[in-house]
């Protein structure tokens, strides 16, 4: 049954990122607080007006009660306070939970702030081990799969099933970099070519180094409130129009289908709530931990047919000026990827695109944006649709 309950009821009224990249000497909690304060400033509010707080845990500074610790640090005393963990899908799944809390009156103004220091707070080996622990402890991890290896299994299956090529995956990294070149905040801004991607070191066949997202420090935050109250804030509100989740497995060896994901279900649910389809969107921010992730999402969210993701990317559609601008900030591939908070930056970027304040990378007259994130190994998917109008 289609859920129309949240459509247009809640808006994002504040958004801010910290600097990203290498930020040695700063703890994840400090970055989380900095992002929070900046988002409140952007919304023109004081911390006393926040009565809901959402965070996610930091791999570089794990805490048993993370949201509570951040509330204490900020000296705020919310009536709604929760820390979430759904891998890369963490950010977007909590947005609709927060929206429900606002609609049901559990909170009026919710701050979502997330940060981590994957680059400076962990050694390379620690970062690899903590991330690959998503694998099954008895039946996957002993074989030594790395996170790129898990996604390489999906890429290889897609190549075998549909004839997708390494060059087609590479084009997704090239498009992300072309957007990042227009974003002064991005970690990697030097334009690259398909040849550059293919010439970069092989990490886990068929994934080259430049098919893999960055390892970063950084934080990002938004402020949400009801649509009624949203008009009283300084910036144009960005309304939540659709939200949907889909869950198919946790461990990749248990996936019923390697090349079709639960993005199909999450997308269909979000489209149904918003009353729109893939052809109505002005831009899409698609979770891009690795290039094949985007390719599968393009297909499963209906931007092209199943098996046609490679050809669609190769057409240049995702690049600036293309038919479907994707990851206009540069994405996890070129903007930054500090772990679970990674998709927050796709959310803040979508807010700026829909406020029409995205500078050189502004998508002309952007009215509707889709943002999609997944966690685990193509396991848990959340799709949101955001718009300028209710």
């Amino acid at each position, binding site marked *: 049954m289609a859920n129309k309950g949240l459509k247009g009821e809640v808006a994002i009224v504040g958004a801010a990122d910290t600097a990203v990249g290498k930020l040695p000497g700063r703890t994840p909690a400090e970055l989380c607080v900095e992002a929070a304060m900046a988002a409140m400033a952007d919304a023109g509010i004081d911390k006393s007006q926040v009565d809901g707080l959402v965070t996610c845990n930091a791999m570089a500074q794990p805490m048993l009660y993370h949201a509570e610790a951040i509330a204490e640090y900020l000296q705020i005393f919310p009536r709604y306070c929760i820390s979430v963990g759904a891998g890369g899908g963490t950010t977007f799944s909590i947005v609709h939970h927060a929206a429900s809390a606002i609609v049901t009156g559990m909170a009026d103004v919710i701050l979502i702030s997330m940060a981590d220091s994957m680059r400076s707070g962990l050694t390379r080996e620690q970062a690899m081990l903590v991330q690959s622990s998503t694998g099954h402890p008895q039946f996957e991890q002993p074989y030594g799969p790395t996170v790129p290896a898990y996604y390489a299994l999906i890429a290889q299956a897609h190549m075998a099933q549909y004839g997708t090529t390494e060059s087609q995956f590479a084009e997704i990294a090239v498009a992300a970099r072309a957007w990042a070149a227009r974003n002064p905040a991005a970690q990697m801004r030097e334009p690259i070519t398909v040849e550059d991607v293919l010439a970069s070191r092989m990490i*886990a066949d068929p994934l080259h180094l430049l098919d893999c997202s960055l390892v970063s420090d950084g934080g990002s935050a938004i402020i949400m409130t009801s649509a009624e109250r949203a008009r009283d804030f300084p910036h144009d509100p960005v309304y939540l129009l659709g939200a949907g989740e889909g869950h198919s497995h946790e461990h990749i060896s248990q996936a019923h289908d390697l090349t079709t994901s639960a993005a199909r279900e999450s997308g269909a649910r979000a489209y149904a709530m918003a009353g729109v389809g893939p052809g109505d969107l002005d831009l899409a921010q698609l979770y891009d931990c690795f290039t094949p992730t985007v390719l599968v999402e393009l297909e499963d969210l209906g931007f092209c047919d199943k098996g046609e993701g490679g050809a669609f990317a190769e057409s240049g559609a995702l690049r600036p000026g293309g038919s479907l601008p994707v990851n206009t900030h540069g994405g996890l591939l070129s903007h930054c990827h500090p772990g679970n908070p990674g998709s927050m930056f796709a959310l803040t970027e979508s807010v700026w695109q829909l406020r029409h304040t995205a500078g050189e990378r502004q998508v002309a007259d952007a009215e509707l944006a889709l943002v999609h994130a997944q966690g685990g190994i193509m396991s848990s998917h959340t799709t949101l649709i955001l718009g300028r109008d209710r």
Partner: protein
Amino acid sequence: MSRILPPTTALTQPYWEGCKAGELKLQRCTACGEHQFYPRTLCSHCGAATLEWISACGAGTVASFTVVRRGISDAYPAPYIVALVDLAEGPRMMSNIVDAEPERVFVGATVAVDFSAWSEDVSLPVFRLTDNGVIS
């Protein structure tokens, strides 16, 4: 740094004992007849709790694979092959394909189980290409 060892449980003990004895053990549901992996307290097909252990024939095909060029730790010297193997009985499992030139491995290749000592107490099922991976 040593290789990652599986934290075995009481439920999975027959599986790990089988590995040590050179047998790949799977659960089979006596209600619906389906096999499953990994071991659980209930059938992943019909939900029944009537599960028995059987010995798999050890044959499988490669559902997907990757050559890991940068190992997870010093205990895993790269390159090594991580694969998803579809067993003849139906279930899919993750494993390594050992003693194979990476160029010889492909999706659909046929493999057979072998066992590799991971520690004094634990052996892991791994797979080898059979006849260059092609069904004869």
